[in-house]
């Protein structure tokens, strides 16, 4: 039996707890939050035997094998370091750390202690994403990706979250070095990073405050971002983050020397784009039929996964 602890008992901790409960051979042995009421409510709702307000006490008394860290981002590095040093495998919610050097140090620490360390990019492990990975590994693209496009959008709208973020100058998202972008874009960037060979690619970024936010008197929070990434000429990528474009895509397009793929995370669809062209008017008639067949296949696959009770919204954490 794998003993799991959750540190940080806010909104995202619920998703972790639900997914941990689904895994045979796993149990949540303790939860921790500096706010005792929050720790108690999570323990109460998931029948967790112990709750703590102090991480050291949790590690000493509950001795977890795995720790899920779902605290605010600025605490990730410190908590993860302590857990790894105490021999735990660690799952860190995104954003992984506040900066690149901290991420490097944390990875080195995990390697040194031979512990597993995971960043919480659960979108990387959805059904369609895994199918895409299998295809790429089988050589479907015909070689290394030539170009990648990643869209990761976020509808700001007029939600309570937006109102709180805009009106509260002490909001925790504002305290992050990259503010809103820092909290969200790593999901979309991780999809690009998977296919880049360089750890330090060239990056040209253009960010700005959308007219939507400007109208609300906001000048600090960048919610539109366009990025060009190049890892020395072999592979290039565009990354787009937008709070305003519709549809608010969560999509990855990967183009190889022979074929391409389009992954839609929201719809859980994966579409193959064949590189060759048909003769004359056939190119106008045959490919739409093939696309229709592929979408039907995706629909069928999604229905089968749902009926097999394997289609949970946060299944990527599983």
């Amino acid at each position, binding site marked *: 039996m794998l003993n799991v602890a959750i540190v940080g008992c806010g*909104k995202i901790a619920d998703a972790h707890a639900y997914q941990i409960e689904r895994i045979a051979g796993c149990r949540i042995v303790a939860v921790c939050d500096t706010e005792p009421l*929050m720790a108690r409510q999570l323990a109460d709702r998931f029948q967790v035997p112990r709750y703590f307000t102090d991480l050291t006490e949790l590690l000493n008394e509950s001795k977890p094998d795995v720790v899920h860290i779902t605290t605010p981002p600025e605490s990730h590095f410190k908590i993860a370091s302590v857990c790894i040093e105490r021999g735990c495998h660690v799952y860190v919610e995104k954003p992984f750390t506040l900066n690149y050097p901290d991420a490097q140090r944390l990875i080195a620490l995990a390697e040194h202690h031979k512990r597993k360390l995971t960043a919480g990019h659960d979108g990387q492990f959805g059904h369609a994403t895994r199918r895409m990975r299998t295809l790429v590994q089988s050589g479907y693209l015909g070689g290394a990706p030539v170009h990648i496009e990643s869209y990761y959008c976020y509808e700001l709208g007029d939600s*309570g979250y937006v109102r709180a973020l805009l009106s*509260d100058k002490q909001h925790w998202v504002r305290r992050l070095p990259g503010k809103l972008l820092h909290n969200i874009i790593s999901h979309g960037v991780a999809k690009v990073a998977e296919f880049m060979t360089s750890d330090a690619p060239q990056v040209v970024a253009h960010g700005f405050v959308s007219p939507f936010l400007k109208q609300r008197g906001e000048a600090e929070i960048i919610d539109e971002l366009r990025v060009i990434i190049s890892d020395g000429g072999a592979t290039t990528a565009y990354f787009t983050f937008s709070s305003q474009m519709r549809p608010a895509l969560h999509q990855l397009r990967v183009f190889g020397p022979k074929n391409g793929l389009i992954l839609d995370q929201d719809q859980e669809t994966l579409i193959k784009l064949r590189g060759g062209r048909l003769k004359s008017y056939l190119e106008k008639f045959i490919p739409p039929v093939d696309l229709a067949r592929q979408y039907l296949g995706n629909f069928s696959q999604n229905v089968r996964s749902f009926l097999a009770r394997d289609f949970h919204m946060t299944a990527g954490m599983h």
Partner: protein
Amino acid sequence: MIDETAIVRPDDLILVTGATGFIGTKLVENLLDRGFRRLRCFSRPSSSMEKLDALSERFRGRAEIQLLKGNLLRREDCLAAAKDVAVVYHLAAGAGEKSFPDAFMNSVVTTRNLLDACLQQGVPRRFVNVSSFTVYSNLEKPKGRLLDESCPLEFHPERVSDAYCYAKVKQDELVTEYGKQHGIPYVVVRPGSVYGPGKKQITGRIGVDTFGIFLHLGGGNRIQFTYIDNCADAIALAGLKAGIDGEVFNIVDDDLPTSRAFLRLYKRNVRSFASVYIPHAISYLLCRLWEKYSAWSFGQLPPVFNRRRWHAEMKRTSYSNAKLKTRLGWAPKVSMEEGLKRFFQGCRETGQHA
């Protein structure tokens, strides 16, 4: 006018949290109309101050309205809010939150912070905790029985799959605990479905809009409506009357309409739309199936429809405001007929409707 027996005087400072909300604004107006001259109105930084500004203007020179923006999750903001207050009306809550942790944090943690601040700044003469009907359990109650203040609270709120219900049950427990352990004099008020101009949604006890078709679930059930002015009046009295510490009051109006009657009037007076009546036996069966499927599929569909919730919201129940009338001397100033007329008119004028 202020009752001679009230526990506060006209110049005592009164705190209203959630003061910019639907009920909060009306409560502030009610207290000002009663002749109270010092009100501290606490609200989130993101709240619109339009209505409170209008009240400030209307009562200029007659009352001091302190507009205090802050976050009850911050203890320093709570200390500022609780300083020198004689009565606290605590309306702020995590209403509308679907996430359990968010609802809990914005209802329970905030309430704890405010209660702690009250202990530090001097215990007020009364802490009025605004709760909800959602805290009651109907599970073991026979169909049609009276639901009043003596009925049990939901003992497994986490199983109702309603974040607001869970948070409100825990909030009530906390207030009671502080009352017992720290001697904070409190009163709990539980409004039913508060309606009036400005309210957009039809309560879920009548039905739910699903994929463009309104599923009418309430049928012949009486809906525990309270018109906004009547509700604010009852809440105001709960903070003023002597000799009611530790008591609970349900707030419902007289002449409660059935769900079917309300829906008919709504369609006739506001807008027409398609609705399908789901008999109670069918809705119970669907809730049971949904609950079973949710458990079998490890939450692939969250158990938002379940038997506990059906018992709480769909089971035929009658309501009473007898305690409110006898102990607080409350009587609804706006009749159901007049209240519904104003509500429908408000919906038509603003174009805001379900």
